[in-house]
C-alpha cells in the first residue's frame, strides 16, 4: 500500500478509523511536513514578489514623498496607522499614546489650527458629496 492510498484513506473519516496508530501518525506527519513546506513556500514566494514589486514600483518614485509607515518612536508610529490628514484623528492618536505611556492628556494641546482653503468641511457632508458623485451606482 503506497502513500497515495495512505493519504486517501486518511482523508476519509470512515476508512481512517480503521487505520492503526502507526499509519495515522505517518499520515499526520506527512500532513505536517507538507503543510509547513507549502506555508513557507507560499510566504517565501510572496517575499520574493514583494521584492520584485518594490524594485519595479519604488524606483521611479524615490523622489516622491514617503507615504507611510516609518519606524519611529511609538508616538509617530501610532499616528501612521490612521488617516494622517485628519487632525482630529491624530489628536486622538496622541490621546491613545498618552494613555498608553501613562502621561496626562492635558499635555497635548493643539495650539493653532487655521483653515485657509475653500474645502468643504465635514464628516457627514463629505459622505453626502461622495454619494452625489457616485449617484449612478
Amino acid at each position, binding site marked *: 500500500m503506497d502513500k497515495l492510498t495512505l*493519504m486517501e484513506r*486518511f*482523508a476519509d*473519516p470512515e476508512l*481512517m*478509523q480503521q487505520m492503526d*496508530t502507526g499509519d*495515522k*501518525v505517518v*499520515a*499526520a*506527519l506527512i*500532513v*505536517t511536513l*507538507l*503543510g*509547513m513546506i*507549502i*506555508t*513557507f*513556500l*507560499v*510566504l*517565501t*514566494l*510572496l*517575499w520574493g*514578489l*514583494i*521584492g520584485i*514589486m*518594490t524594485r519595479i*514600483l*519604488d524606483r521611479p*518614485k524615490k523622489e*516622491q514623498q*514617503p*507615504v*507611510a*509607515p*516609518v*519606524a*519611529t*518612536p*511609538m508616538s509617530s*508610529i*501610532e499616528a*501612521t*496607522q490612521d488617516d494622517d490628514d485628519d487632525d482630529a484623528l491624530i489628536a486622538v492618536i496622541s490621546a491613545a499614546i498618552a494613555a498608553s505611556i501613562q502621561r496626562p492628556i492635558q499635555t497635548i494641546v493643539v495650539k493653532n489650527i487655521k483653515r485657509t482653503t475653500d474645502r468643504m468641511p465635514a464628516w457627514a457632508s463629505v*459622505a453626502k458629496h*461622495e*454619494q452625489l458623485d*457616485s449617484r449612478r451606482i
Partner: protein
Amino acid sequence: MQQAFIDFFYSTGFVAMTWQQLVMIVVALVFLYLAIGKGFEPLLLVPIAFGMLLTNLPLADMMRAHTGHDPGGLLWYFYQGDELGIFPPIIFMGVGAMTDFGPLIANPKSLLLGAAAQFGIFTTFLGAILLNFTAQQAGAIGIIGGADGPTAIFLASRLAPELLGAIAVAAYSYMALVPIIQPPIMKALTTKEERMIKMEQLRPVSKIEKIVFPIMVTIVVSLILPPAATLIGMLMLGNLFKESTVTNRLSETSANALINIVTIFLGISVGASATAEAFLTAETIKIVVLGVLAFAVGTAAGVLLAKIMNKIVGGINPLIGSAGVSAVPMAARVSQVVGQKENPSNFLLMHAMGPNVAGVIGSAVAAGVMLSLFG
C-alpha cells in the same frame, strides 16, 4: 383552572432543565464575566457568551431548524451565515479594510515569521490525530493555533461543523489570553541581549505598493491554494478598498456597519452552537488542551525562527517572532511590551506588525492546505 396552572407549571423551563444546561449557563456567565469584567475580547466574547446562554435555556429552542411550516428559531437563522461560510469572509473583508500591510511590505522577511508560527497548527493536528479525532476534525482543531477567529470558524464550518462551538470558543478565549500565554515562552527562549536588540527604522512604503500588494497576494495565494481564495480574496478586497482611497465609502462600511452587524450575528450564533449536548463532551476538553498547545508551539516556533534569522542576518529582535501567530494586534503589542521591559527605549510595535499580519496570511494558507487535503 387549577389544571391550567399545573399545565403551565410543566411548560416552564425550571421543570425541563437538565444539569448540563445549568452547567452551560454557568459557563456562559463566566465568559460574560471574563469579557465584561476582565475585558477579554469583549466584542466577540459578549455575543458568544450570550448566545451560549440563550441556546441553553430549556424549551426556548432558539436553535430549532426551519422545517416545513415551523418557522425555526432565531439563532438557527443567524447560524446559517456561519454554516454556509458567509459570515467569516465578510468579517475578513472588514479586517482587511482595517489592516495596514505597510510594515510587512517594508520588511517582507517578516513573512517567514508568519509562516513559522503556523507550526503550532500542524503539531496540534498531529496531537489531535493521536487523540482519535478524524483528519477533518484535527485540521479544524489545529487551526485554533492560527489565532484567527474567522479562519477557525470558516474551517470548522467546512470540515467539522459538529465541533464549531467548542473550536470558536477555544480560539477566541486563547486569543484573549495571548498576553498571558506568550510572555513566559518568549522569555524562556531568548536571552536578555536578544530581547534588548533595537531594530532599524522601516522604510516608507508608497501608495502604489500598498495597492498592488493585495491584488498580488490574492492571485498568488489563490493560484497555489484555490480553497484559500475565499478568505484571502475577501481580506485583500477589504484592504484594496482601503488602500485605493477612491472607495472610501466601501472601506468605511466594510470596517464599520457591515463587520459589526456580521460580528453580532456570528458571535451569537457561534455561541448558540455550544448547546449542552454538543459542548459538554470529552472532545471539548481535548480541544481546550490542544488549543493551548497550538498557541504555545506557534509562539515558540515564531520566536525560534526569529532567533535563527537574527543569528544569520542580525538586527532582528527575536521577540517579534511571537507576533507571527496573528491575534492582530494583540500579539504585536505583547512583543512591544516585553521588549520595552528590557529596554525602555525599544519600540518593536511596528516591526512586530509585519509578522503579525503575515500570520493572518499564514493561517489562511494553512487553512487552505487543510481544505485542499480534507475538504
